[in-house]
């Protein structure tokens, strides 16, 4: 086995080893932390409201992007 093959093999194995450590099997009874409300994206649904008052306060209506049918209303 040439040194290049050995290095390639070592790199592949260490990459595989590193990626394997990132995986874990979570059993059904261990999902308490995953089920926590803080794990949900925008759990309390305040993002839209926060953007709205921030736009109003900063006078930057449209600064975060505007969605609509073209009437200019929001």
């Amino acid at each position: 086995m040439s040194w290049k093959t050995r290095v390639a093999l070592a790199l592949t194995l260490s990459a595989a080893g590193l990626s394997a450590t990132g995986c874990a099997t979570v059993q059904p009874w261990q999902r308490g932390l995953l089920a926590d409300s803080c794990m949900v994206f925008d759990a309390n649904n305040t993002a839209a409201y926060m953007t709205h008052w921030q736009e109003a306060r900063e006078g930057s209506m449209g600064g975060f992007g505007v969605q609509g049918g073209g009437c200019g209303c929001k």
Partner: protein
Amino acid sequence: MIGRPVFAFVLAALLVTPVLGAAPKDAPDITLTDLSGKPIRLGDLRGGVVLLDFWASWCIPCRRSFPEVDALHRELQSKGLTVIAVNVDEQQKNAYMFLEKYPHTMTIAFDPKGAVAQAFDLQAMPSSMIVDRRGRIRFTHEGYTDKTISLFRSEVLQLLAEGE
């Protein structure tokens, strides 16, 4: 080319395997701890029908199943049913907060490390197992729907009607 007898054997094996797999398994002889710290050994409850209901404070369907299972316990305990509600919360304080909200009369047990859940090979939350008078797991339920509690009742009544 596979010979006809070999093919017939493989086919027969495939057909028979699910039937053999359906034979009731003995419930693992686990020991739990109740609210007062008293040990409960499943083997000691042999002779009666036991409903093991696995729940957690974070499990949304459990908020519905818990009071309904407790009502079933009150209805059928005099006929020989023991309900053990096994809590699998890792943080026991969450379980106590849940218990304060949901009054109960059934036995509550704790399994914070999930050892009992593992022994029963739990596949989902909530899960329930009904153990017959001879200590065999006869019915397993995963999840909780509108129909689950009536299924529990009919299955428990069926097992109570069976002799030892």
